[in-house]
């Protein structure tokens, strides 16, 4: 049972990392806390579902198209709404949360709830790993999670756009003096964050079903992971994902499933009490040092 718990804790950690990494990317680069993140996650799932079941497109095509459309929606949201309230954190939160509420409650109003609203799994086969049955979908989550983290690291370290993202994140005005357009970088950051939400939805939703409530859940989980890890830090998201992922599964197995929610909230409280900028809130520390 112990080994099996570890396997499922690992999978759970990657689910949390996938859920949080897009929110973290957007916040890390442009400082926009995208509270419509959960809604974009659910919206992309409904888009995939529509294309699969009503337009009868193949799975890969609907997945790619819905990821693309979600990225475009993110960019449009920035250009037409967020740009006007840029730099006022509270207005940004209210605007994005309002958009998120509108999207999620629209889906609820349309009544798109039930077990038939789900996305297909990649394969129905499952493996025996360490005494536990693990299906292909969960293995895919771990692999795609690893690939995304690696890809993101390569992107931000070796491409001009990725380096520009990190420059904007550190000092916007200095980045401007090198010809990096801060509005364009922020548009891309919201768009990429939305795209990562859509990728997460495409591979995580098949484990359950699409429901508006899931949108709020994803947002809360993403926030929890980002706060524990230190907002804007990718390393922090990974470490926090593992801490909460393991803590949740172990409480589930050894204490009781009704305690799982308490564990992640307690983790937030504990981290905020000891280290208010999060585990890896490094930027602030360096500033204090100098």
């Amino acid at each position, binding site marked *: 049972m112990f080994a099996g718990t570890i396997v499922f804790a690992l999978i759970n950690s990657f689910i949390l990392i996938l859920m949080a990494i897009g929110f973290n990317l957007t916040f890390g680069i442009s400082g926009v806390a995208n509270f419509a993140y959960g809604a974009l996650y659910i919206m992309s799932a409904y888009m995939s579902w529509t294309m699969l079941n009503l337009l009868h497109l193949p799975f890969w095509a609907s997945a790619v198209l819905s990821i693309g459309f979600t990225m475009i929606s993110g960019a449009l949201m920035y250009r037409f709404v967020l740009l006007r309230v840029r730099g006022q954190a509270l207005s940004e939160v209210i605007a994005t949360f309002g958009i998120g509420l509108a999207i999620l409650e629209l889906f609820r109003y349309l009544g798109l709830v039930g077990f038939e609203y789900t996305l297909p799994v990649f394969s129905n086969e499952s493996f025996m790993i360490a005494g536990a049955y693990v299906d292909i979908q969960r293995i895919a989550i771990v692999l795609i999670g690893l690939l995304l983290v690696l890809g993101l690291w390569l992107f931000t370290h070796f491409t001009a756009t990725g380096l520009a993202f*990190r420059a904007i994140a550190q*000092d916007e005005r200095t980045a401007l*003096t090198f010809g990096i357009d801060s509005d364009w970088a922020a548009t891309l950051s919201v768009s990429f964050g939305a795209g990562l939400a859509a990728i997460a939805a495409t591979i995580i939703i098949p484990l359950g079903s699409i429901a508006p409530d899931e949108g709020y859940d994803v947002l809360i989980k993403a926030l929890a992971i980002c706060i524990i890890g230190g907002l804007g830090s990718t390393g922090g998201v990974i470490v926090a994902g593992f801490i909460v992922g393991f803590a949740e599964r172990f409480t589930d197995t050894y204490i009781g499933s009704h305690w799982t929610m308490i564990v992640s909230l307690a983790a937030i409280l504990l981290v905020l009490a000891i280290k208010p900028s999060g585990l890896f809130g490094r930027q602030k520390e360096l500033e204090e040092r100098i």
Partner: protein
Amino acid sequence: MLDVNNLMVFFENALALNDFSMQVREGEIIGVIGSNSAGKTTLMNALSGLIIDMRIKEKRKGGERITVYGSIVYEGVDITELSPGARVKKGIVLSRERHPVFPESSVAENLKIAGYLRKKAEVREVMAYVFTLFPALVPLRAKKAGFLSGGEQQMLAIGMALVVRPRLLLLDEPLLGLSPMMQKALVNAIVSLNKESGITVVLSEQFARPVLPIIDRGYVLENGMLTLSGTGAELMDNPEIKAAYFGI
């Protein structure tokens, strides 16, 4: 190369730069001398276009109104309303005051970030030149810029501006907070990049002593107003400059 005509900059009702005019010819080193709050940084921001970006962002926030009157003409083209990015593409590059480096990135990465608009091969070439100009940076390549000393950060900041391949390099208080030794090293580097690469330099400074010997011409600013201008030698002999900046 650059003509500034009757430039005026207001922050709300406060006049930061008052009816300022200057000419910069190709290949010159021009000094803008003035004490704190004289308007040096405002002038640099106006020349690099940062003020245009600040104006847009303040307007979005409903904050301070920034107004710019007058004109800035670069190689016969009026660039007064051009964005900072468009000016960088034309070859006007600013190195901001207080060692503007990206603290979380390594020295080599900082230089790569600065080369955002340039091709990879070009960036590599200029990086090699930067390391010959500032040999002290070579052993620090992989170190995070935030952990560098002030002087090393300033060298890196100038190196970053060079990676952009400027034709007109604007340096805002490059000697701020540096030891006399480091000031000397930097002044020598500025002279050699001007001579070797033919880059025109406009630098603002409050330490007149190390700067006056190297500049072709200088403008003295006081409370946003031009009070004196002339060649470096003329300014050095001026009794008012001697009293105000050399303490003689």
